[in-house]
């Protein structure tokens, strides 16, 4: 059975050591300012938002160029490997589309592109599952099945400090209905079927956090929880502590977050991913 190589993009923001440990190929999303671009994941979030503040217009994100996928797939297939390529939700980015086109052009019989229908940690868990499967010597199909199982099991909730960034970036999805709201609300959002959807409309931060805690699965064999933030370390720490109190046995990861997702959810946002294993 040929070795399977795992490919992903930067929006999972995998920890550096995991990338090295498993030999994962990470393709960067591109963030375009009016006066140039940066590669996602290579700029510190604080510096990034400093630059955003200095810019007249918000930067826009774009999927990695098709050529980059082709190059990477050709190299891997050329080395006698098969490829599982897991990417940011197709509802939020054209990355999956580019990857699929490239796969067709290189060798469809050796490459499977998986639409993670997620971002950040929830996508990262899928990538790590694939990498572990590859390390264990599983075949491509089996790895894809495992990834899809993780995709079904995971749920992801987040609290943006404002809906402005989602709106300006065009990724607001089901939360669009909340835009004209005349009362201040703290929407509890989720990524469902790849799209941003509204879980609840809550008026205060504390209750919104409680609402996310309420969504914590109650029955599982093991629970893995990922938390992340966009320039809101204190808020995230509170959430982390609350989760530890609620589910002390859970494995808790803190995920970093980079410019490509940061610019869409905005400073002040926090997110929580639940991955119950049955």
């Amino acid at each position, binding site marked *: 059975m040929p070795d399977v190589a795992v490919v992903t993009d930067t929006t999972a923001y995998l920890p550096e050591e995991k990338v090295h440990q498993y030999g994962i190929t990470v393709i960067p999303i591109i963030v375009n300012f009016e006066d140039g671009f940066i590669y996602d994941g290579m700029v510190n979030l604080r510096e990034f938002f400093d630059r955003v503040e200095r810019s007249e217009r918000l930067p826009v994100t774009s999927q990695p160029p098709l050529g980059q996928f082709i190059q990477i797939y050709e190299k891997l297939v050329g080395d006698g490997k098969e490829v599982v390529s897991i990417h940011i939700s197709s509802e939020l980015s054209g990355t999956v589309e580019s990857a699929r086109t490239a796969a067709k052009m290189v060798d469809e019989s050796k490459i499977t592109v998986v639409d993670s229908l997620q971002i950040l940690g929830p996508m990262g868990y899928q990538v790590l599952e694939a990498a572990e499967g590859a390390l264990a010597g599983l075949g491509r199909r089996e790895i894809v099945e495992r990834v899809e199982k993780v995709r*079904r*099991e995971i*749920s992801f909730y987040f609290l943006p400090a404002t809906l402005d960034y989602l709106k300006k970036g065009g990724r607001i999805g089901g939360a669009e*209905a909340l835009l*004209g*709201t*005349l*009362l*201040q*609300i703290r929407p509890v959002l*989720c990524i*469902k*079927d790849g799209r941003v959807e509204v*879980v*609840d*409309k*809550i*008026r*205060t*931060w*504390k*209750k919104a956090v409680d609402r996310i805690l*309420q*969504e*914590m*699965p*109650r029955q599982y064999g093991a629970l893995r929880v990922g938390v992340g933030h966009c320039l809101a370390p204190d808020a995230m720490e509170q959430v982390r502590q609350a989760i530890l109190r609620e589910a002390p046995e859970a494995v808790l990861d803190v995920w970093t977050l980079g410019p490509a997702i940061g610019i869409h959810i905005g400073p002040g946002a926090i997110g929580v991913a*639940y991955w*119950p294993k*049955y």
Partner: protein
Amino acid sequence: MKTQTDAGPVFLTAEDFKKMIGGACRLLEKEKETINAINVFPVPDGDTGTNLRATLKEVEEVCFGYKGDSLGELSGLVASRALLGARGNSGVIFSQLLRGIARGLQGKKNASARELSKALWYSVVFAYRAVSNPVEGTILSVGREAARGASKAARGGADIHGLLEEAISSGKEMLALTTDMIPALKEAGVVDAGGMGLIIFMEGCLYSLRNDVGDFWEPVGRDFETGHEPFLARQKQAACFNLENIYCSELVIKGAGGRDKELRRILEQQGESLLLVNQGGIIKVHIHTGEPGRVISTCLQYGTLHDLKIENMQEQHSHLSTSAGKQEGWQPLPPKNGQANKTGIIVIAPGDGLKKIFLSLGADEVVPGGQSMNPRVEDVLEATLKVPYRQVIILPNNKNVQPVARQVQELCEKEVTVLGAFTVPQGLAALLAFKPTAQMTDNKIAMERAAGGVKTGEVTFATRSATVADTVIKQGDYLGLFDGNICSWGKDLNGVAFDLAQKMRGEDDEIITLLQGRDTPYEDAASLMSLIKEAFPLLEVELKQGGQPLYYYIISVE
């Protein structure tokens, strides 16, 4: 007041009935302010007089337009019109009284005193049935005693005049007793306003029938003051949030005949939210109970049982809060097969600003109405029919609007749910908790729970002087109400509002929302906002134009 008169008619005709309604309308018009003026607390309240008058006005139009000569037919038309035009709690009860009369006079061209007295009994039965939690010491008691008096008179061979006289005098005796029957009335030293409205109605009927409409009317209102809605509403409110009776049970009984009254009495002891309809001997029962088995055994004694359905509302509730996050996703996808499965939301709210806010939060229709501005049943019904959905949730947002919404529920063929949201902040909280994709039962539970968790503050003025906790509140003073209870007062609007906000604020609260009233200058509202911000730097303060009359501020703290 005159006593025995010249020999009255032996039969009541359609013409007489018209005359009676006309006379009652004129007398109510004359006395409506007297009824309005009597409020349990010095807060602008339900406008019982105006509501009764408005309800009667609708009825009068029907009378004018009727060209036939059948008393039964006319009273039927009057009853259905009253049902649609009913305003306010007392209006709704009043319309039920008229429905009962129509039931009693059904098929009759004329009616004898005995027949009329029987019809009055029907009216009492209908009225009691309409109220989910009948409270003695209200229009209900007055109506019942009036019917008892009429019945006594009829048995003694009285004519129509004599019957009405006896009904009025028995009703009045009861009315005087209402003060001692309801603590709120006693505290204020007044009688029940709805009950007084009914007496005035009957007197109007009698005087016009005797061609006697003059200045003889001595208003009882000067000495007896009251309105009973708040008391009633509080009791209802308490019932709405009770989750002890967790089994929603529905069933149909066949072969029970006319024993539904008796059954109702028994079932009332076994749960709440009882709905019992008898249609030609087939009884439909809906009840929230803690002991569904007991309900079934009871019903079995009345006939055969059909279409049994028992749902654990608690389970639906827990399902809502824990099923989330599992692998199949945490919410069903929105139905794609048209709009029939969606739920429409009708909101009753006073003021343009509030209308905009409710619409922005997802309400489908906003009907103007609220404190002292009861919407017509017809308007709410129209809005309910207008939304293209089969399921409709009504947010009354005022205790006095609740009965109007219930009436719509009864009249409308759609699946209408009236939510226990009794204030504007409660309505806002409930609406935020609404999920378009959730089941009606789950939505009801989540929305009422949200409504129950909100603190409501209202700043208004005293319509008359009163003593609260040994302090005299002068007419015209500003009043701060915290969940309906007076907690601050004074001559300075923002002082009262600030004090109220301070009392409402709990340690965990994060945001305070000020809904500015129609008559509140923006500068006042803005300065109140900075006052609060200064005092509580950690609180967020949101100021919105509510545009509501009577309330300078509606405040919620969360």
